[in-house]
């Protein structure tokens, strides 16, 4: 009985043959071809010569394992804190660095905040968890932080232009002005690969307020109020961008301001 397949085995089948991954029938067929066909034998030989003592080679990579650092890292993953909070410790440090850089007059172009999840959940993260990241980062600001920023309209216009360009959005002083608040500065960040703008205001009564805009391409959603990190948050999604207003401002007042901004960015 001839078990040989009609067509000669390809490199993929020959590789599987070498790796012992073929079924008995497939194996017999390849064997038949090998017995009768010089070309198949030559290809098998070539693929076999691509074999290597891989295990020994890759074991070299385990010779330089930084055990003390990795074990220290593992031990330092806090058992008591929720993981979500823990994850942003790096961001908080980075946030402090941004503030320091700003005080030094350095324009910080970009801060990559670590993205929190994977796969399908990552998509949810883009539409939801950026609010958590922003809320935690925003918590670093105090009235004193912003009071130290000189009121320089020309500088604000430049910052807004630079940030707006990255979000493909016109960010101007009139479009962003909020009654009773002083616009103090604008920064550009990145969350999960999406440009993220943060416009900071100082409210003489309630302290810092931030308007954040992320170009995440998510579908429109209605204005919604929530509370995060001990702050009030109003958020919505419009024309491919997520908007979020955050501060200690009372929810009703914050929502009114959000509606003002939303109307200006609705077309």
């Amino acid at each position: 009985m001839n078990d040989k397949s009609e067509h000669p085995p390809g490199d993929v089948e020959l590789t599987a043959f070498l790796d012992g991954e073929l079924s008995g029938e497939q194996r017999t067929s390849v064997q038949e071809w090998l017995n009768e066909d010089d070309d198949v034998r030559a290809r098998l030989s070539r693929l076999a010569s691509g074999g290597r003592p891989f295990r020994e080679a890759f074991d070299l990579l385990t010779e330089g394992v930084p055990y003390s650092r990795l074990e220290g890292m593992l031990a330092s993953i806090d058992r008591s804190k929720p993981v979500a909070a823990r994850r942003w410790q790096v961001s908080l440090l980075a946030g402090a660095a941004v503030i320091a850089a700003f005080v030094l007059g350095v324009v910080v172009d970009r801060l990559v905040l670590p993205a929190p999840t994977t796969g399908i959940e990552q998509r949810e993260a883009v539409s939801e968890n950026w609010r958590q990241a922003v809320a935690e980062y925003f918590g670093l600001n105090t009235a004193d932080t912003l009071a130290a920023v000189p009121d320089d309209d020309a500088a604000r216009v430049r910052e807004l232009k630079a940030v707006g360009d990255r979000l493909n959005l016109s960010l101007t002083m009139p479009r962003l002005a909020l009654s009773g608040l002083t616009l103090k500065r604008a920064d550009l960040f990145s969350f999960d690969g999406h440009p993220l703008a943060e416009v900071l205001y100082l409210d003489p009564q309630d302290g810092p307020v931030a308007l954040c805009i992320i170009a995440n391409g998510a579908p429109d959603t209605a204005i919604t109020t929530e509370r995060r990190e001990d702050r009030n948050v109003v958020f919505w999604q419009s024309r491919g961008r997520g908007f979020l207003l955050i501060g200690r401002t009372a929810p009703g007042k914050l929502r009114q301001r959000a509606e003002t901004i939303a109307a200006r960015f609705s077309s």
Partner: protein
Amino acid sequence: MTDSGPEQLRSELRSHLARLWRYALVLSTNRDVAQDLVQATCVRALERAHQFQPGTRVDRWLFAILHSIWLNELRARRVRTGQGVIDADLLPSGDGDRAETNILARQVLSEVLTLPEAQRETVLLVYVEGLSYREAAELLEIPVGTVMSRLAAARATLGRLARPDGSAVAAGKRRQ
């Protein structure tokens, strides 16, 4: 996992650190990124301890987490910052008692590291970690045929690097 799961998982993580490190290095070819990747894997695993299914292998589950974090979160950063350049200090020094063995192993490693990332990863999982084609396909969430074609491509490339007479470094033989 049971209530004692997280502590048991910590212990498992400790015992697999070297293999997680190796996988992270094979993907990132950068020690700093590899460390971030292992750390993110540990955090994620502890966070999802409840998702671990008893009766399945912890190491495979950890590999799948690491692979997913790399693909979704860290890979872009690595490509952006390093353009995939392999760090010079990735290969250990060639001295020591095992110098002779190391010459071959180092050469093989440097050859394998020139393969595309997907092939390097598949070679590691199948030829080093000993996963079957099917297991590798499940872990990487790709068809078995893709695993096969990656390995065939890796073998074809490495086969071309071997000497014409086939004596180079084929299957554990030392280069003459």
